[in-house]
């Protein structure tokens, strides 16, 4: 492996890492904090991508269009939470079926409203060149966006009053309520954050993908599920570790053989990881941490 090839594999890793983390965060926040597996997660990403692309077609500059994508998805998430999701708290499996139904409806409604595809917005920034190789700068920058997203989440959940209330609600709803936390509102806000993150993913990938189609969201689903489980219930710890681990496996095997081998290696690694760490990376970190504190 010469220096250029090392750069190639590094960039491929960064791209995989960014994709896994960004595909996962929204799903992970909702799953980790609320115990709901949102099978319509891909379609939340779809909403973000469509809102971004369509508003960019209206002449808005790309960053503004992306903001529109995030806001639209957030509002969409809140509406869905108020009408349907809130009735499913504590019913993990029912929520899976209901969100699967929502996903079917959204995909087909998108098709009915906007046709089989919408025109693409081009990727900004161009490429980095090195030797005979080059790599899209935007794709590399997505890794930065992924890390920034995780940092913002970290600050939100550990340094703000909202975050402390949210975590209290997750740990013990009864106690939190008795201490004056409006848990209903807490869940709504958490769901809104999860939706906003999915919207952000859609917004960021709208220009980095071929023209959006109603199936846009499904491309993210497999990586998101795998990473949520490998990461375990804690978003802040699990998601980056899962993204790093799975991204590394995928990039290495892809570089060494082909993208197909990379994909299969990543999925197999995920199965083995779940077997070894039934509560994922965050379970591992958690058990190391609690072992220092308490026993019973």
């Amino acid at each position: 492996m010469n220096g250029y090839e090392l750069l190639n594999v590094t960039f491929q890793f960064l791209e995989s890492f960014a994709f896994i983390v960004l595909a996962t965060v929204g799903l992970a926040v909702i799953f980790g904090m609320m115990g709901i597996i949102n099978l319509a997660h891909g379609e939340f990403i779809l909403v973000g991508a469509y809102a971004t692309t369509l508003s960019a077609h209206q002449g808005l500059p790309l960053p503004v269009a992306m903001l529109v994508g995030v806001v639209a998805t957030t509002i969409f998430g809140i509406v869905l939470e108020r009408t349907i999701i809130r009735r499913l708290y504590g019913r993990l499996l029912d929520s899976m079926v209901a969100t699967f139904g929502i996903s079917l409806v959204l995909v087909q409604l998108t098709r009915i409203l906007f046709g089989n595809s919408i025109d693409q917005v081009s990727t900004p920034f161009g490429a980095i060149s090195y030797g005979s190789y080059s790599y899209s700068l935007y794709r590399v920058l997505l890794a930065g966006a992924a890390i920034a997203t995780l940092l913002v989440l970290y600050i939100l959940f550990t340094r703000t009053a909202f975050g402390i209330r949210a975590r209290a609600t997750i740990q013990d709803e009864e106690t939190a309520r008795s201490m004056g936390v409006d848990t209903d509102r807490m869940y709504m806000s958490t769901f809104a954050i999860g939706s906003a993150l999915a919207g952000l993913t859609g917004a960021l990938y709208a220009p980095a993908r071929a023209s959006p189609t109603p199936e846009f969201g499904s491309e993210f689903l497999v990586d998101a599920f795998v990473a949520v489980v490998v990461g375990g219930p804690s978003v802040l710890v699990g998601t980056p570790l899962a993204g790093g681990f799975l991204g590394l496996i995928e990039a290495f095997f892809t570089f060494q053989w082909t993208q197909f081998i990379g994909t299969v290696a990543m999925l197999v690694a995920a199965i083995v990881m779940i077997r070894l760490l039934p509560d994922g990376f965050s379970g591992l970190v958690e058990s190391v941490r609690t072992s220092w504190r308490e026993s019973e």
Partner: protein
Amino acid sequence: MAASDPTVKTTRAVDETGERSSRILQTRDLHKEFGGLTATDTVDFAVEEGELRCLIGPNGAGKSTFLNLITGQLEPTAGSIYYDGIDITPLPSHERVDRGISMKFQVPTLYEDLTARQNLRIPLQRIVDADEFETRTRELLAQFDLLAEIDETPAALSHGQQQRLEIAMAMALEPTLMLLDEPVAGLSVEETAEVAELLRTIQAEEGVAFIVIEHDIDFVETIADRVTVLDQGSIFTEGTIEKVKTDPAVRRIYLGEER
């Protein structure tokens, strides 16, 4: 009472020293750590056949951990557990149950969708044939004064009835050692007295040994042959209830904290 078992053992009085050869349970250097923290600290502990032993100690003393080690729900970091003279440390929970260890959990864990009869079937079907279900069910329910509730689901039972049904289910396996985690927590004075009476009767008529975790010191006083006080994962002291009650050190660590 249906004392159908012909091999009824009689209760043995326990002398002050507590030394006996007929140990049903014995732990040697039993040790459990969670990460860096010690929950059970090299415990040597023994229960005689047919004895009713109470485990007391402040919150976090390691009582539940200790019971979980005996049932096999937890694996010890070091040490061994002997049951009826055999090292059961490597055995999984269900095999320990097969050897005669039965457990009633602290939180009620009845099967919500099933009636009392069906709940009892779950332990019963492991040891009797299908044509004996009904007879044994009725015997057990009669023994625990629940015959009228035979077709009720747990939701329709009072708290005391639920506790009795749980003990009945644990007894259905005809154990030689019963582990009870706070059997009277949340019960009224009358219900507590009923349970105490019940345990004494079982002990007397069927020769079952008990290890009971309990906070209610009056209850402990009513039932216990001997008492073991746990503190910070190790045995602080052991002996009759009178001896333990009057020990000023015990009062300091346990009773003082209790009220």
